[in-house]
């Protein structure tokens, strides 16, 4: 029998529900996984219970609080960190990163990098320069260029329960897609590839907006017809937005677009869906956010897209309505009336 090469461990940054689920999948195919938790207390707690985010950890997963080890010991790294912390994490990690690193992230949110006193005005609008995807943050903050992302209907809890699923690994580099396939493909986890990195990233980011709305419709018990109407109009809005922000329409019609949208808009396992659902139950947004352990990216995305839409002059009725609800400018009931009266564009003109 040929001796096995001792290969480098695969790194996962972030021990949230998705990070933990991915670590376990990676552990099935790789000798060793290095899982990074943000605080020493968290790392110790996870190690003690050998459990993270409610999921039992495979025996070949080592937990660490030293970010430097991820850079120094791993060649392939999977960052799964909320968008608000991503850039800071990259800044800490960057001195330990080199151009041979491959990074495949799973964060579905925007990085919003502005100074405290920045106020978007007509003379000084918010643009894509200030609002970046995670792959752009990785490229901006380090010498890593071989970057990819994961997207698709990947509800962490179901994956952790070993239920069948599929994901898209998107990257400009075929090499990165192949690495993703090699490390993640199992008999229950199919891996698709795409070269439209920005498009696929935008799918994951924008669907969270629609998920909030879908949760709201469920919460109002308006029925399946209404939800389906909402989701299909939501998809159209996503595509128009996605094209303006740098992606291609094709991405939205596949697994990472429609697929992810369907899973997220129909499941209370989705955080964003839950936010919408609870808003419909008359809970206040601040209350909802503070009660959730993990971040629902959709809320921040709604704020950002509202601003970007005015800069790039695109109509986003669904996002606008959700924005107004979140900022207590409209009640959920009024929103319903408004949307039912709104003259939506009927044309599917993006194909």
């Amino acid at each position, binding site marked *: 029998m040929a001796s096995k090469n001792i290969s480098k461990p695969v790194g996962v940054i972030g021990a949230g529900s998705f990070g933990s689920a991915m670590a376990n999948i990676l552990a099935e195919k790789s000798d060793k996984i290095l899982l990074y938790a943000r605080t020493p207390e968290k790392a110790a707690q996870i190690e003690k219970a050998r459990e993270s985010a409610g999921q039992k950890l495979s025996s070949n997963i080592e937990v660490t609080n030293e970010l430097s080890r991820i850079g120094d010991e791993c060649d392939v790294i999977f960052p799964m960190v909320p968008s608000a912390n991503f850039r800071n994490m990259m800044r800490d990690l960057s001195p330990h990163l080199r151009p*041979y690193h491959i990074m495949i992230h799973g964060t579905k949110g925007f990085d919003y990098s502005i100074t405290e006193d920045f106020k978007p005005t007509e003379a000084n609008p918010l*643009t894509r320069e200030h609002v970046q995807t995670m792959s752009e943050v990785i490229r901006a903050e380090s010498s890593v260029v071989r970057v990819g992302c994961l997207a698709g209907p990947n509800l962490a809890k179901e994956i952790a329960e070993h239920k069948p699923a599929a994901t898209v690994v998107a990257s*400009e580099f075929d*090499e990165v897609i192949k690495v993703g396939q090699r490390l993640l493909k199992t008999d229950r986890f199919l891996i698709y590839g795409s070269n439209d990195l920005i498009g696929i990233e935008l799918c994951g980011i924008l669907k969270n907006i629609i998920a909030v709305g879908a949760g709201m419709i469920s919460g109002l018990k308006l029925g399946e017809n209404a939800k389906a109407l909402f989701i299909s109009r939501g998809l159209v809005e996503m595509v128009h937005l996605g094209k303006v922000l740098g992606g291609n329409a094709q991405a939205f019609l596949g697994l990472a677009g429609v697929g992810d949208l369907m899973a997220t808009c129909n499941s209370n396992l989705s955080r964003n869906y839950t936010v919408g659902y609870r808003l419909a139950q008359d809970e206040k947004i601040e209350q909802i956010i503070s009660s959730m352990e993990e971040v629902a990216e959709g809320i921040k995305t709604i704020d950002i897209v509202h601003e970007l839409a005015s800069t790039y002059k695109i109509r986003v009725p669904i996002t606008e309505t959700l924005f107004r609800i979140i900022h207590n400018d409209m009640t959920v009931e009024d929103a319903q009336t408004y949307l039912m009266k709104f003259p939506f564009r009927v044309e599917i003109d993006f194909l």
Partner: protein
Amino acid sequence: MSKKKVRYSEILPKTHQWPIVNLAKNRKKFTEEVTEEAFTNILATSRGKSLREELEMTVYREKLRIKANPWKVDPEDEKDFWKYIQDKLAESQNEENSREVEEEILREIILRYANEIAGNFKSSSYRFARGVITFGFARLLNAARVKGFTSLFSRQLDLDDKIHIVGEPEHIRKLAKIGTVVMVPTHFSNLDSILIGWVIQFLGLPAFIYGAGLNLFNIKIFAYFMNSLGAYKVDRRKKNPVYLEALKTYSSLALRWGCHSLFFPGGTRSRSGEIEKSLKLGLLSTAIEAQRILFQKKGEQARKIFIVPVTINYQFTLEAPSLINEHLKRTGQERYYQESDEFSSSYKIATFLLKFFTKGSDISISIGKGMDILGNYVDDQGHSYDKNGNLIHTKDYFVTDGQITVDPQREQTYVRILAQRIVEEYHKYNRVFASHLVAYTAFKMLERKNPKLDLYSILRLPDEDLELDYKEFKKAYKKLRKRILKLNKKGKTGIADHLTDKAEDAIRLGLDNVGMYHAQRPLIRKDEKIIIQNPNTLYYYHNRLVGYGLEKYI
């Protein structure tokens, strides 16, 4: 007291040490190496065709080219050569050794191409040629500017009084000593090649090789100059994969032999007046491949290849009217009608040269900061570093699992990244002149006044619609200037000194200079009105400021 002039010593005073001389001395060996390498590369890439099909296609296309598009510079034996190849290929078709024969044929074709491409540099001719140009231009400059009969012999003014070199000239000298430099200038005018050639020798650098269109060799005197200055020949008629591979291998191997190279990555002169946005990536990719091969051979000790963007800043471009017409015809098709006619070009060149040397409008050439093949800045020792000052090992870009791997798709993606970086640098080093800004302001105001018209309709507006109110114009100019000054502060673009002058003065300077050498000035002021006399050339000069996102500010 005269200002002390900067003079650069030659970094390699002994010409025989120049890499280009070494290449010329070993021409036979070099072309043979190119042939072997291109041969291996072609066989390794399957394009869905068998070798025989590939060869048959090549023969077919070449015969077509000879018939449809012959040039004076084409060798006399061409027709015979391709007939010989065709016959040899046909005869071997069903033979047992057909594969062997096909490979032999492939080698013969590549070798022929390599010999056609290879330059014929002679250092004596080089010194003579550049002496002629420098002397000639300098005499003209003095004759035109210094008064008096003896001015023809005056040494008072040199070319560097007219052509200002800014940016990082010392840095490029250092890089040329420790590595191989690929200079990538913007390309607006035929004058550029001469200017860059002058800059290279002025900075004390050894001669660079560069690809010159084969058609330029049709004229004997041009051929002499091109050869002497280091050109290799690029035949744009030949688009078959065998030729393209031979060309790329030539460039790649020359870089590995240490030859500094000049690429105009825009491929050809910018027809629209815009700073190159989509660069021709073919030759640029050879720089990346060459660097990877050097790393494969010598590891971390390998010689580095440095990319240096150079922007040439003119207030005007002589060929503007014809270039913009070509561009508009191509993009507008039947929406564009050409109205004006051109008069004789030698007259125009003469008047241009005269005006150029007698009047204002200096040229500034910005030598950019050196970068590695992924666009990271390098220091004077050639080390790459990121924006935080951390060292980057360029070799790592080619490494997977601890080893250098050859991944063509990866390198293709790297070229796009490099191209983006070069375009960013062009915008940074481009200096905004008042003439560009007045053109931009005027054209954009025209667009805003006619929101329902497309470009081609705007270019055909009647005279009464081509007038702008001066007060409004000044207001818009100031708003745009504010944004440009902000970009300048952020390091995103350069500006000419006069741009910070009072708006009234800068506008006057801009109006005086924009398109000043053309038959019809694009823009003039008449009392309280700005009159657009030639929207086509105005559009051309306005294009210089595209790419900075200024549309949002007017």
